[in-house]
């Protein structure tokens, strides 16, 4: 063949390209797997108001921390590697420092990318999570019929998002803290205020509680009559 001399060079080039593509492919697969894995967020980590759904948030949040800097109450923090939340993304732990629901929503205002959506203009429409009375057996009001209503008093939209409902069980009357999901923003004031050692009322990600939202634990078709 006439191009005998050129061929080994070309073959080497093609081989090295295949090697590179293969290595990049392996790296890509590992990175992709890790990326999918890190979309799982622990239930105790609450995103700031206006945060997009978790699978959209992963592409939208550049991890700059401007929302953290904007938060006047130091509620928000950036996840550090090892926290269990995707490193660099903002979250808060309601039991430690809840969201004070600022009227002007400075965290959303500060976000340069829209990971915290500017469509949220009324903080009462925020859907950071939803409070759930997770331990009726430790709640003073429910389990002991005590006159505790710490969660109710802490709620910034009391009577709308949470109310004390009169209940009766086995002839025993008591008042039960009752969350109204459509009004609860998930600010976490109730969880912070709860007097039991481990909070009896907790804010959970909305998709854990409302299965009609994407990313929930059960497919929409598999659940009847949610909400």
């Amino acid at each position, binding site marked *: 063949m006439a191009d005998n001399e050129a061929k080994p060079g070309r073959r080497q080039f093609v081989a090295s390209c295949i090697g590179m593509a293969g290595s990049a492919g392996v790296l890509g697969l590992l990175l992709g797997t890790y990326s999918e894995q890190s979309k799982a967020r622990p239930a105790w980590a609450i995103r700031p108001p206006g945060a997009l759904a978790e699978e959209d948030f992963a*592409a939208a949040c550049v991890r700059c921390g401007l929302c953290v800097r904007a938060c006047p109450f130091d509620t928000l923090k*950036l996840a550090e590697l090892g926290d269990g939340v995707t490193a660099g993304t903002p979250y808060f732990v309601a039991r430690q420092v809840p969201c004070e629901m600022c009227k002007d929503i400075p965290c959303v205002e500060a976000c340069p990318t829209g990971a915290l959506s500017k469509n949220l203009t009324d903080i009462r429409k925020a859907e950071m999570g939803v409070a759930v009375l997770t331990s009726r057996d430790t709640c003073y009001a429910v389990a002991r019929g005590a006159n505790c209503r710490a969660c109710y008093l802490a709620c910034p939209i009391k009577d709308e998002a949470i109310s004390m409902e009169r209940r009766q069980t086995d002839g025993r009357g008591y008042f039960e803290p009752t969350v109204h999901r459509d009004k609860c923003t998930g600010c976490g004031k109730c969880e912070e205020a709860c007097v039991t050692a481990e909070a009896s009322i907790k804010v959970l990600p909305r998709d854990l509680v409302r299965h009609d939202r994407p990313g929930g634990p059960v497919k929409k078709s598999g659940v009847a009559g949610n909400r």
Partner: protein
Amino acid sequence: MTTTTHPRSFLARNQWLLARRTSQIAILVLFLIGPWFSVWWLKGNLASSVFLDTLPLTDPLVLLQSYVGGHTIEATALVGAITVFAIYALIGGRVYCSWVCPINIVTDAAHWLRTKLHIGVNWQPRKATRLWILGASLAVSAAAGAIAWELVNPVTMLQRGLVFGLGLAWIIVLAVFLFDLMVSRRGWCSYLCPVGAFYGIAGKVALIRVSAVRRSACTDCGDCFRVCPEPHVISPALKPRDPNTSPVILSGDCTNCGRCLDVCADDVFEMGGRFRKRPG
């Protein structure tokens, strides 16, 4: 090693290196005086920040991954990314690497120690590796709908860590240090880091470039080649086949670190404009 007859002062031999360290530390300090002293000149981190509460600055590579990941880019971030890209296209793309990036301090330290300890093990991947990693990061961002490289990026991990809290990110930084110390000479910055690869592309058009203006004075001592993190960029400008070739180092791989200016006892190199046509 050098052929000069006058010994050059310490300052003359290290001025660019000192300027570079000053710049790297000053930028870090600008981010830190906010949380430390509530002086908010520069708020955020290298991924995105606000200068003096007005000018947005956003890392174009991070935003590009966000975009291919399926997110609709908002104006603030877009303005920030265009601003940053324009700055680097002007002053040299990989100026990011040598004048801004905090990992550069880590890898330079590894290289210094490696030289001191005479560590010879040297795995050298292909130059194109970092471009492939860059491609893979963008592909994964698109496929997974996430900003993929930011999950592992030591650059932003370290910088964000210093400004917001490090967590376990020191492990990744240590890994880069050990890799450069014991596995590959200048391995991270010169072969693997896709951030550098990206800024290298921006640097292809950069206006500020190093130039071997007095290449006729070169004594072939080899000091510049030994000290350069990307030695392949020097030859076309310093030792061209055609003597009329421009003395400007045009490769985007050059980080404008200026170390060659420091070490050259014969004053061959100069930092200057891109369009210098002939040797001076």
